[in-house]
Structure formats: structure tokens, C-alpha cells
């Protein structure tokens, strides 16, 4: 099963550094990161707390800016994009799954999933069809009129997954997607993510502390004190 090696990298990271300024102190978080992620890869990022996993994930997803270095995704150097271009790029290329689901509490499951489609030119009817299809995929078609507070953690995360894939992005980023779930729900969520990778060919980059979650990935990379190492 070395087809992943042959495929061209969808993410190319070169000389990436990132530091935070606290007062007049400079705190380096990522130091000279170099690595590629192949198209269709399922990558797990592991490492101790504070090692910079979330920071790296955010940089790849285009919601944070690097100090120096290159991040080329699908041929686009995202460091060169303006804020507005980056927003448009994110809305079509990246699906987000968060630890705390990040659903909008006053919107129903259906409306939460519909949200990213409001930035597209789709008609109301087309949006409805898309949302229903995706909710069916995560087995929530009966819950679509429920508000997040009326759903269990696992169900909320499934809504979040539906929202992440509704625009059919190429990359899925997940920051500890099972971090707030019990074992069974976590298993369930991982199955869905795995399916999205296998059946729909999504490139998945997942930060996790959970070795069980990491087992699902094809590849595990470790981050320690801002430096990336192989197994």
C-alpha cells in the first residue's frame, strides 16, 4: 500500500517558523519545519501539550500567519494571499473539525451545516438538497431541526463533520476531534473521518493525543518543542 508515496504532495512546507510575542519576550513555537503531505493522506500529528500542534495545523489551514517560510497547498502559496483571498480559499479548500465542535448555538443542525453554502452561488433549493445529503451521510437526517444543545457531543461533532464537508473541500483539518468525547462516540467519529479519507479521498490532517485515534491514520508525525520528527 505505497500508493500514497507516489501521489504528488498536496501540502509542501518549507522553512516554516512561527513565534509569539509575549511582552518583549519572543517565544519560538515552530522552528524551521520542512515537510510534505501527500494527496489523500491521513496524517496524525502528535506531541506533548504546548509543542505547537495546533499552531502548525492553523498555519496549514490558513487561519494564522507564519513568520517566515512557505506553505504551498494545491499549488497556491497561501502566505501570499490577502486576508479576503485567504477567506475565500479556506471556504472552498479546507474543512474544519474542532475539539469543541464550534457550532452556532442559535442555529439548528440543518442551519449550521448550511452556513458555508451561503458563501456560494447555490440556490436555496440546491442548498437544501446538499445539506440533506450530507446529514444523511452522518446519520443525522432525523435530527436536522435540533439545536446543538439538544444533541449529544458525538452528534454535535457529526454535525460539525457535515459542515466541514458540505463544500467538498480537498483537505480536512481536525484539532483533537475526539478530545471531548467518550470512547464510543470517539470511535464513531473516527470511523466517519476514516470513511471520508478512504471513500471520498479527502486529505486528513488530525491533531490528537489519543493513540487509538492515531492508529486510524496512515502516518503519524510527532512534534516536540516546535521540531518535527518521524516515528
Amino acid at each position, binding site marked *: 500500500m505505497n500508493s500514497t508515496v507516489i501521489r504528488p504532495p498536496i501540502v509542501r512546507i518549507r522553512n516554516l517558523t512561527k513565534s509569539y510575542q509575549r511582552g518583549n519576550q519572543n517565544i519560538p513555537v515552530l522552528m524551521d519545519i520542512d515537510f510534505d503531505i501527500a494527496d489523500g493522506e491521513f496524517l496524525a500529528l502528535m506531541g506533548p501539550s504546548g509543542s505547537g500542534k*495546533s*499552531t502548525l495545523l*492553523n498555519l496549514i*489551514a490558513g*487561519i*494564522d500567519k507564519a513568520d517566515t517560510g512557505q506553505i504551498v497547498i494545491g499549488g497556491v502559496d497561501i502566505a501570499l494571499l490577502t486576508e*479576503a483571498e485567504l*477567506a*475565500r480559499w*479556506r*471556504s*472552498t479548500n479546507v474543512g*474544519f473539525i*474542532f*475539539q*469543541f465542535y*464550534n457550532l*452556532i*448555538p*442559535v*442555529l439548528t443542525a440543518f*442551519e449550521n451545516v*448550511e*452556513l*458555508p453554502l*451561503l*458563501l456560494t452561488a447555490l440556490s436555496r433549493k440546491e442548498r437544501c438538497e446538499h445539506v440533506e445529503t450530507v446529514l444523511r451521510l452522518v446519520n443525522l437526517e432525523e435530527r436536522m431541526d435540533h439545536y446543538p444543545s439538544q444533541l449529544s457531543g458525538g452528534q454535535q461533532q457529526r454535525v460539525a463533520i457535515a*459542515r466541514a464537508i458540505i463544500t467538498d473541500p480537498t483537505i480536512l483539518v481536525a484539532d483533537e476531534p475526539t478530545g*471531548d468525547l467518550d470512547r464510543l462516540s470517539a470511535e464513531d467519529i473516527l470511523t466517519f473521518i476514516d470513511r471520508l479519507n478512504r471513500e471520498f479521498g479527502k486529505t486528513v490532517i488530525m491533531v490528537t493525543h489519543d493513540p487509538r485515534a492515531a492508529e486510524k491514520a496512515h502516518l503519524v508525525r510527532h512534534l516536540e518543542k516546535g521540531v518535527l520528527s518521524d516515528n
Partner: protein
Amino acid sequence: MFFLKLIIRNAFRHRLRTVLTVVGVAIAVMAFGLLSTLVGLWYLGVESSSATRLVTRNSISLVFSLPVAYKDRIRQVPGVKSVSWGNWFGGVYIEPKNFFPNFAVEPGSYLGLYPEFILPPDQKAAFLLDRRGAVAGRKLAEKYRWKTGDQITLKGTIFPGEWPFVLRGIYRGAQKSTDETQFFFNWNYLNETLKKTVPRRADQVGFYMTGVSRPDQAAEVSVAIDTLFHNSLAETLTETEKAFQLGFVSMTEAIMVAIRIVSYVVIVIIMVVAANTMAMTARERMGEFATLKTLGFGPWYIALVVFGESITISMVGGFTGVLLTFPAACWIEAELSQFFPVFNISPMTIYLDLLASFTVGVTAAVFPTWRGVTIGIAEGLRRVG
């Protein structure tokens, strides 16, 4: 549509907080509306007075009188159309707290000068015929349940004694702003009684009221009248009714300015309160804003959500305030009619009320929007959980 739904649901997410803010804005807007109306009324007396009516009084002070004989000489001044005269009577009805303006006037000429006091012809005739006749404004008559033919006794303060009158007419104002709380009676009744009781106070008038044909003659005629009595025992001061009223108004103008400032302060206070509430709300929503931005929504959407919610709440408060203003105004008109004969909420006041609440909503949203727009996505996302 989608965002309208989101805005409205957001606005009522914290029921209690929203209700309290709405109540606060409503009360502030109501106070603002009532205070503006009050200040407006103060100047209304001036605005509704006619520029073709001149008031002549003793140049020393209003409390000094003028000889009644001046009337014939004033009448001869070119440009003068008619002359009336009268005294401020200052009578009290049963108890001192029942205050309303009452005058002794030369009846025919006075009614001629005040066409805005509308009196049915039969009542007018009855009034002119009866020496003890009196006329009251509609509001005043309603307040004390007077009917024509009723005997009304005023207790004199400036002119001591009990003064019985017969109500011969009830006038109605031609405009909504016309004062309908006046009471006036025949000056001859006053003068003849004084001749018998205090002869030295007889044949004296408090003021002359002169009608000129055109407003542009007012200045010229005023000067001509005052020149006439220059160097006489009682020199005169003539000014338009408008200027005369302004003289009264200016005395209390400082108070009016203070009230106006207070009405703006009320709005500023509610603005600060609303801004604080919105800042609190927006702080709780930072994670949601970051999520929206992550999904690709730009700063305009964040602004739409924050401004929408803020303006929704403030406008609900504003409309509630406007609705509350009307019963409040009715209450003031009923309870304090001796001070505010007409307490009308003008359309202008309502526009200003709504403008004020809109401004509150906009102002309250500025800082939270700026925070929501400028906060980095990664930082905003850290606020979740």
C-alpha cells in the same frame, strides 16, 4: 434572510439581559421625548404669538399700570388697526392650587385681536351683553366641569374680595397649540367695582394690546407709541407679543437649557449601558465570530451580526419608548394642565426618539464589531470551550 434569523435569535439569546436593555432604552427614550416636548412647549408660547399684536406696558415694570386714557391716543397712531386693554387679574378659584391665567379685558376688541379663540356667535353676543360675563377655554371648562350659565366666583389676590362671574362662553382654539386654559372677563366690571371700593386704582390698565395691519409695521408703530408718551408720568414700553413672551421665556431659558442637556445626558447614559451590554455579549461570541471567519465569512458579516443585534435591541426599546410616551403625555396633560395646557408629542419628537435609539444601537456596536473583526482567528478560536 438567513442572517436576519441569526440576528433575531442572537438578540433574544439572553432573555433577561435583552429585556433589561430594552426597558432601559425605552425609559430613556420616553424621558428624552417628554423632556424635549416640555422644552418645545416653552418656546411654543412664543411661536404661536402673533407678530401683528403689540403689547404696551409701563416702561418701569409690569407691576406698574398705565392710565386708561392712553387708549384714544394709541388709536390715532398711523398703522394701528385696533386697541384693546386689560389687567392681569390673578384670581384664585376656590383654592390657591387651582391656578389658571385670568384677565380683565375690553371684551369686543380683545376677541377681535384673538381670532384664534373661537366662540360660537350666540355665546359671544351673550358675553358682550353681560357686564359680569366671562369666557373660559375649553380645557379649563372641562377640568372644572363648567357649563355656560354657571356662576363662577374667583377670589381676588391683586384686587381683594370675592368676584362672582357668569360663564357666558367657552372658546375653542383654532389650532392644537392654542392655549385653551385662559379665563377672561369684562374690564368694565373690574373698573366700576374699583371706582366704588378703591377709587385710586380705577381707570388704570396693566397693558394695552394693539393690532397692526402688517407685521412689518410693528417696529415703526411700537416706536411711535412709545414716543407719544415720552416724558409723561407713565412712560411706555411697546414690543411685539412675541418679544414680550420671549422676555418671559428668557428668564427661565437657563432652566430650559439645563433640561435639554439632561435629556441628552439620559441618552448618553443609555448609550454607555447598551455599549457595555453589547461588549459583554460580543465577548461571549468571540469564538463564534472566529468560527464564522474560519468558514470564510468576512468582516462585513461580523459587522452585520453585531450591528444587527445591537440595532434590533435598541430599536425594540425605542419603539416601546415611543409607545409609552403617549400615555405618559396624556397623563401629564390631565394632571398638570395648569402648567402645560397642551402636551402634544410632535412627529419631530418621535423622529428624534427613534433617531436617538438608532444612534444608541449603532454606537453600542462599534467597539464590539471592531474587536470581532480585528481579533485573529486562531486567538478567537481559543475562546471556545
